[in-house]
C-alpha cells in the first residue's frame, strides 16, 4: 500500500504543469497569440516578403491574392502607393510590441511602487496618493495621452511616455487597495512579529501575494498600450511618418475604404487580435497563478 501511494506521489505533475492546465484554453490561446506577435516583431526583416516602404505605383491598391485581380507577390494586396500590406502589418507589429511592453512595464513599475507605499503607510501619504490618482483619473485618458504626445512631440519615446504618465494610476489604485487588504491578514502581522521591517514585509511577504494581480494588470495594460499607440498613430502624432504602424495604416486605409477596404480591415484585425490575445493571456495567467485556486 505504502509503495503505491509513494509512486503515485512521484508521478504528480510539476506545479508549472498544473498551473498551465488550470489556466485552460484562455491561457493557451492568449499565450499563442502573444507569442506569434512577438516572433513576428522580432523576425520582421526575415519574414516580410517586401520592404514595407518600397512603393510600386504601377500595382497600387491590389486586392489580396485570393481575390479577383490579386497578385501572389502581394499576399494581402497593396495600398494606394503600391506598398505591400502584409509587410507593413509585420513591421508595424514591432512598434506595437515595443510600445506595449515598455509602456506597460514602466507604468507598472511606477504604479506598483506608489501603490505599495500608499497602501502600507496609510495616513496622509495614502490620502495624498489617492487624491492624486483621483484627479489623474478624472481626465479622459486618451485625450490626455494625445495632448501629452502633442506637447512632447512625435517619436517612440514620447508615445511610451504619454502612456506611462496616464496609465500608472491603473496599477497604483488596485495595488494600493490590495496591499492594504493583505496587510490586514494574519500572515502579514506574523511577519512583523518575527522582526521584519516594513520594507522587508512588503518585499518578501506581501509582493509575492500580489503577483497574480500584477501579472494580470500587466497583460491587460499591454493591450491597452497597443490600443493607445494605434489611436495616437491614427491621429498622426506617433512615430515618424515613414515607419509603418497599424494606426497609420487605418488612417491611410480610411481614405480608400470604398476602393480597397482590405487595407483598413487587415490593420483593424491585427489590433483586435492582439488586444484580445493580451486579455486572454492575462485572464489565463491569473487563474494559473492564483493561490486560492491551487487546491
Amino acid at each position, binding site marked *: 500500500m505504502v509503495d503505491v501511494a509513494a509512486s503515485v506521489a512521484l508521478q504528480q505533475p510539476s506545479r508549472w504543469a498544473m498551473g498551465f492546465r488550470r489556466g485552460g484554453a484562455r491561457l493557451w490561446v492568449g499565450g499563442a497569440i502573444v507569442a506569434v506577435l512577438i516572433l513576428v516583431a522580432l523576425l520582421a526583416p526575415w519574414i516580410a516578403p517586401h520592404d514595407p516602404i518600397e512603393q510600386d505605383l504601377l500595382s497600387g491598391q491590389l486586392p489580396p491574392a485570393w481575390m479577383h485581380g490579386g497578385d501572389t507577390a502581394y499576399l494581402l494586396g497593396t495600398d494606394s502607393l503600391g506598398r505591400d500590406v502584409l509587410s507593413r502589418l509585420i513591421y508595424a507589429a514591432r512598434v506595437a510590441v515595443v510600445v506595449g511592453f515598455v509602456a506597460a512595464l514602466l507604468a507598472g513599475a511606477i504604479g506598483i511602487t506608489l501603490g505599495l507605499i500608499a497602501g502600507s503607510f496609510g495616513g496622509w501619504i495614502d490620502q495624498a496618493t489617492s487624491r492624486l490618482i483621483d484627479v489623474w483619473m478624472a481626465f479622459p485618458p486618451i485625450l490626455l495621452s494625445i495632448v501629452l504626445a502633442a506637447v512632447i512631440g512625435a517619436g517612440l519615446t514620447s508615445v511610451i511616455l504619454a502612456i506611462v504618465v496616464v496609465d500608472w494610476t491603473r496599477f497604483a489604485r488596485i495595488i494600493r487597495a490590495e496591499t492594504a487588504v493583505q496587510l490586514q491578514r494574519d500572515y502579514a502581522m*506574523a511577519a512583523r*512579529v*518575527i522582526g521584519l*521591517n516594513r520594507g522587508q514585509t512588503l518585499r518578501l511577504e506581501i509582493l509575492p501575494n500580489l503577483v497574480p494581480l500584477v501579472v494580470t494588470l500587466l497583460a491587460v495594460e499591454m493591450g491597452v498600450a497597443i490600443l493607445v499607440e494605434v489611436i495616437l498613430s491614427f491621429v498622426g502624432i506617433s512615430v515618424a511618418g515613414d515607419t509603418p504602424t497599424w494606426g497609420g495604416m487605418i488612417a491611410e486605409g480610411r481614405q480608400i475604404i470604398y476602393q480597397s477596404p482590405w487595407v483598413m480591415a487587415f490593420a483593424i484585425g491585427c489590433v483586435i487580435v492582439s488586444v484580445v490575445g493580451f486579455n486572454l493571456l492575462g485572464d489565463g495567467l491569473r487563474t494559473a497563478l492564483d*493561490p486560492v485556486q491551487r487546491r
Partner: protein
Amino acid sequence: MTAVLSIQDLHVTIGRGARAANVLRGVSLEVQPGEVRGLVGESGAGKSMLGRAVLGLLPADAWIGKGGIAFAGRDFLTLPERERRDLLGRQIALIPQDPMTSLNPVKRVGDQIARVLQRHLALSRRQALQRATELLAEVAIRDPQRVLGLYPYEISGGMRQRVLIAMAFGCDPSLIIADEPTTALDVTVQRQVLQLIERLRERRGAAILFVTHDLGVVAKICRTMTVMHAGRVLEDGETADVLTRPRHAYTRALLAATPRADRPADALRPVPPALIESLWSEAHRLDRLSIVGRT
C-alpha cells in the same frame, strides 16, 4: 531573578475624544523565566490586546495612556524601533490564534521557517533549512524534508499550527505569547498541540504567556494564572490556588460555568448577568475617576 516580562499599570485606549474606548484599565502582571502563565477572561476582557501591546502590534488608533512594559528589565516602550524588531522573533515569539491564515499562502513552509532563522541567527539558507528540518521533526511532523517543500494549503490545520509552533520556538526565545493557539483546532488536535507546547517548553525553557478562555487548558499546563475582565486584573495567583479557592466572585462564577466530568451537566450555571453588570459599572466608574484625576 528579573521577570522576563513585567507589565506595570498598563492603560490602553482605542480612539480619541468622544469615541475613545478604554480596553486596558491598569493591568499589571509579571512572567518569570520559564513560567507558564495563563491569561483568562471572556471575549472583550482585553487579553488579546495585552498580548498585542507586548508585541507592538496594537491597532493604528490605539494608544498607551499610562504604564510600562519591560522585557527582561529593559523598558520595551521606549526601545528604538530597530532594537525592538531585533527582539521580536528572537527573544519574544508569538504562536498565533488561527493557523489557517497565519502562514503566507504563497510561500513554501520551509522558506517561512527559514526566514525567521535567517533573520535572527545569521545562518546561511542551507543551514536554516537544515535547522528547519530538525524543528519540524521536533514538533512531531513525519517526513519533514517533504513538508518543507509544501505550501500551507497542502497541509492540515493541525500541521500548520505545529509549523507555527516550530517557528515560535525556532530561535529559542525567552518569552512566547500564545494567543489562544488551540481555539481554532478540534479537540483531539488541541490535546496534541498542548502536549507539544508543554514538551518544547520543558526542553527549551521558554516562559509562556498563554492567552485563552479555556479554564481546562489553564489547569492542564499553566502553573500560574491571571483572570481579567473589562481590561482589569481581577485575580492572580498559582493555578491550583485560584481554581480550588477562588477569591473573586467572577472567578467563582467562571468556574461554576465550566463543564466538568465529575459534575452533572445541570450543575452548570451561567455567569450571573448582575455580576457582569456590576463589574462593568465599576470599570466605567474608574474611567470617570481617571478622567477627573487627569484634568
